[in-house]
């Protein structure tokens, strides 16, 4: 399989503090790849760097063969990457429908947008019920669905998801992971950051463990090291 996203030696810093200290990893075309790690390991920083919100100090990020490190966020969306951000970040004072239209901002195909909204409403019936309601009035689970749906409106080739289960009830988490499986079945490549390692390893084809700004382990779920990885994803390595 070919690598859709190839991250090499990426260093991202906030002022003098390096949050990523040389991260390298690959996301294969058509896979669900998962990034695990304890709080503060740099997972969100990697997502924000890939989406262009943060600028890497050095290193390379290649998407479908072309360099995107340091490109502006709207340019990265244009190339086919969409991020479902941590804490969902729906537009609280815009209606559900407007949130979706904002997700399709770069598209000009009116009919395509309308039919995509229709398709997403079929997949997320709760969003259809709340189409005219402001994003801020939705429940946490509904906001997560809206955030995913908004990202899908740009028709991404690669969907980045940052902690989609954060703060959600177990039943809603199940629902979100069901959606992740469905999206993958429909052909979307997914790069997922999760604290919930158990859930993540159930859907992932491949995973990376990141600790203190470095990838410290990578492998396939089901391998012998799984318990160790889960332990370290929650608690950090014993040495730390």
């Amino acid at each position: 399989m070919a690598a859709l996203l190839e991250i090499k030696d990426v260093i991202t810093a906030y002022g003098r503090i390096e949050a990523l200290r040389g991260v390298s990893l690959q996301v294969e075309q058509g896979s669900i790849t998962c990034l695990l790690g304890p709080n503060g390991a740099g997972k969100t920083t990697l997502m924000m760097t890939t989406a262009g919100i943060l600028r890497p100090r050095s290193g390379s990020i290649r998407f479908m063969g072309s360099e995107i490190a340091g490109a502006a966020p709207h340019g990265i969306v244009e190339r086919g990457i969409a991020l479902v951000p941590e804490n969902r970040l729906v537009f609280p004072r815009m209606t559900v429908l407007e949130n979706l239209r904002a997700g399709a901002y770069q598209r000009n195909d009116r009919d395509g947008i309308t039919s995509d909204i229709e398709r997403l409403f079929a997949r997320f019936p709760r969003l259809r019920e709340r189409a005219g309601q402001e994003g801020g009035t939705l429940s946490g689970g509904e906001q997560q669905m809206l955030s995913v749906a908004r990202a899908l409106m740009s028709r991404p080739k690669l969907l980045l998801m940052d902690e989609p289960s954060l703060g959600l009830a177990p039943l809603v988490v199940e629902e979100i992971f069901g959606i992740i499986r469905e999206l993958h079945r429909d052909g979307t490549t997914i790069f997922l950051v999760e604290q919930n390692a158990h859930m993540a390893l159930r859907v992932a084809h491949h995973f990376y463990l990141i600790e203190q700004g470095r990838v410290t382990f990578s492998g396939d779920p089901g391998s012998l090291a799984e318990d160790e990885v889960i332990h370290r994803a929650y608690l950090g390595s014993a040495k730390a």
Partner: protein
Amino acid sequence: MDVLADLVQNTLDGLTAGAAYALLAVGFTLIFGVLRRVNLSYGAAIMFGVYFATWTSQHFQIGLIALALLSIAGAVAGGAYVERLCFSPHYRARDNSRADASSGSIAAMVASFALWMQFEEAAILAMPRHLYSFPPLYEGAPLQLGSFLLRVESIYLLLAAIVVCASLHAVLYRTRFGLAVRAVIDVPVAAQLAGINVSSVFVRIFALASAIGGLAGFLIAASSEQVTPMLGMWSTVKGMLAMMLGGLGSLPGAVVGGLVLGLVEVHSQWFFGPQMRDLIAYLLVFALLVARPAWMTRWTNIRSAS
């Protein structure tokens, strides 16, 4: 009965002043609400536009519409200069420590203060007299409504405020650009992630706000038939006060704030004397900022929650 008549006449005059303030506040609020930056040079750029029109009117024979367009064009040019120097460096420098947005906004505000001084000095150098006459908006007598007087200029100002607000509302809620603007106001990072080019939205908002300011400046100069370099400071202060009264960042609030400011000023002047006009207006804004009633903080809360 006399007091009642005074009240009605003052209210008419107050609404006129308020319409001008509302226009100024709408432009100010656009910049503050979208960029979350205070542009102290807002009024100075307006003054620059109006001076440009005044200068032209003294050298060439031009009509009112041309004067209005020149004021708007001048204000937009002035605004673009301010945007380039004070604001664009901050949202284009993508150095991650930009998370520290407050230092950036202070730098932008201080820089905009410097440009305000620059505009004022330039105006004084180019046109050294303190006061220049400006062609009148309307030369006839005021309208007589029963025992009340209504200046025709007032109708123009009120109409302009209504038309500008209605068009702005249509742009914000009916167009693709409006969707992008509201997204940027709501959650800037999410807007970027949705593929919206945020700095291009900023530039266009700056131009739009300056154009509205230029129109306001033209109407104000043409109804008072004179200009001084003080128009810059005056516009910034009135726009900012009205914006604060309206709850910092809400467009309908800016309109209401402008009208309230105008009414309070005119009534205060009538009942307590001209020295009290500004004093009472400032006291009102001060009291509101201290008390921060719920309707006022609602907007800022939504802000910080995002």
